[in-house]
């Protein structure tokens, strides 16, 4: 729970990612097709010559309203050699530094969130990227979509 956080402002709220897990942010007009894509899995991109599966963050968090075709801003997460791209549409990102988080974090969990930060501007949910990754893997296993 500690460490600097990247904050994403979506229509449905604000979400935080560990900056340590963020390998980069890329912008792309169109996502190449991923065979067998379903649920919130939306496509595939490459980052530093490696393929990265992309999920739609709003969709994963339950908001399936179509985002107007304003391109894709994709946050590339890299943890222990595993890569996942989080598509945040055209949402804005900002940061909260570690010092600002002291005493403001709770362990309140959601389906894909592992805690909550009570920041000055309102609450921010911390994304449980491992849970997202596991669900992505499940969605892309043939047994589940055949």
């Amino acid at each position, binding site marked *: 729970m500690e460490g600097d956080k990247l904050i994403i402002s979506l229509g449905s709220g604000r979400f935080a990612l560990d900056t340590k897990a963020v390998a980069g942010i890329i912008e792309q007009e169109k996502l*190449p*097709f*991923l*065979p*067998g894509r379903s649920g919130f*899995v939306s496509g*595939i*991109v*490459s980052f*530093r*010559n*490696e*393929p*990265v*599966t992309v999920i739609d963050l709003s969709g994963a968090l339950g908001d399936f309203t179509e985002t107007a075709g304003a391109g894709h801003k994709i946050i590339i997460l890299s943890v222990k050699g*595993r890569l*996942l791209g989080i598509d945040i549409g055209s949402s804005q990102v900002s940061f909260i530094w570690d010092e600002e988080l002291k005493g403001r974090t709770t362990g309140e969990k959601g389906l894909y969130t592992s805690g909550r930060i009570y920041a000055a501007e309102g609450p921010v949910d911390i994304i449980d990227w491992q849970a997202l*990754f596991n669900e*992505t*893997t499940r*969605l*892309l*296993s*043939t047994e589940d979509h*055949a």
Partner: protein
Amino acid sequence: MDVSKYKALYLQETGEHLSGIETGLLSLEQNPGDSFVLDNLFRHYHSIKGMSASMGYEPMMLLAHAEEDLLDKLRSGALANSEEITTVLLKCLDTMKTLAERVRADEPLDIDVSALLASLKAAAVGQAARMPPAPAAALASGGQGLKLSSVMKVEGRLFDELLATVGDLFMTLSSFKTLTHGSRSVEFKNGVHQLGKTVNSLHDTIIFARMLPLEDLAAGLPRLVRDLAKETGKEVSFTTEGMDISLDRTILEGLGSPLVHIIRNAIDHGIEQTEERKKAGKPLPAVISIKAVTRKDRVVIEVSDDGRGIDRERLKAKAVSRGISAEKVESMADRELLKLICLPGLSTAETVTSISGRGVGMDVVKEAVESFGGSLEIESKRYLGTKIIMEMPRTSSITKALLVETGGEQFLVPISRIEKVIELETKELETGLYEYAGTQIPVVSLAAAFGIKTESRLRRTLIVLDIKGTYGSAGEKILAGLVVDDFSDEIDAYVKPLLPPISKLREASGITVLGDGRPVFLLDVPQIISKTLTGRNP
């Protein structure tokens, strides 16, 4: 003069000369007076002498010098060649290999070569050579597997990193390319074009740096055959063909012990004793041959012997004694029956020998070949011989593939599966069947299989594919057609395995990132087609 910077070059060229010497000495055994071979041998020794003297590698220089003198006498006819001389030279060769290894490892060259020098000198004045024990033989004959020349001692990881760096270069390049569209500077455009060509060639170089010729592996085989033949008292000659074909180093290395196993089995169990061959009216010496040919982006390696072949009846009996039902064994096609020799511990030979034990290793051979994505076939004619056929990919990562497009999305189709690419009017493809080479083949639209929207168009591309399960196994092809919008280039794709979360995708067998950063899947065509067809006819 600082000679240390020439060490790598020294090792490389000395290694080539040592292989040349090995080949030459073995061919002298067949034809002891061959002046062409004697001339070449002389030059090999001469070159090693000169280089070793310059580098200050004294024991190597002394050996090469004495050998050069001996060869000079042989090639000028002042001395007649004999089996003893060849044997001394082979002993010396082992020591020279050891010396070269020590040079490589920066170890002291404190090997006493005086006994070898004495026998070379004795041989040069026509005295029977005394055979000193070779100190630390480089190749334990008939012992371990084969050794590759190790000019390239680079960890595979380094190549992966190099490739990743080139990938970054490609990305940078593509942003430059975008900039050139808005630029009027011809110099800039030319510069970016040139940069692109350079990055491409760097990429190719890295990929092909991993390739080594089969020769590197096969160079040790004549010696193996010679030693095994001597040990069993059989007369065997050895031929090779197509050894210039190169394979990824990892695959080549993986072929080493299968080849040794196959050759051991052939000499030990396949090839008959001289008397038996004479009685049967078979030619002497017996022949073991290795032949390699490329088939699309794969290589087929056949190891044949003209020995006694596999005894089916005995094989059946063994299989039954190991718990396979007699009924099943009797109903097996010959091809399947022969594959039984790949079952662990199943051998047709009655005697256990020191060389190959109980028909050792056909199970190991099969496993090794399959672990590289290869396949194994066995052909055998009773009393005439056995042929082991291995079909292997030539690279672990590069796949020749056709770039296809459908609904604006790009995919790769492996060339090894493609029979034909046909451009047709869309209406010819509406029935789901297409007449190809006299038969109706099922046709599947990639767009429909993937649920990709495509614009209506008059013409589309039909790719006729062989979707048979195991690549390369004998038997009929199974043809089917895949419809895409269009196709473009055939590329050498550096295919990466699918990692989580996409590791369980069945529609694709790998993924590659194109030069411009686009990720493209290598389609698992048999999966896509059979899945769609199953859905069509439940």
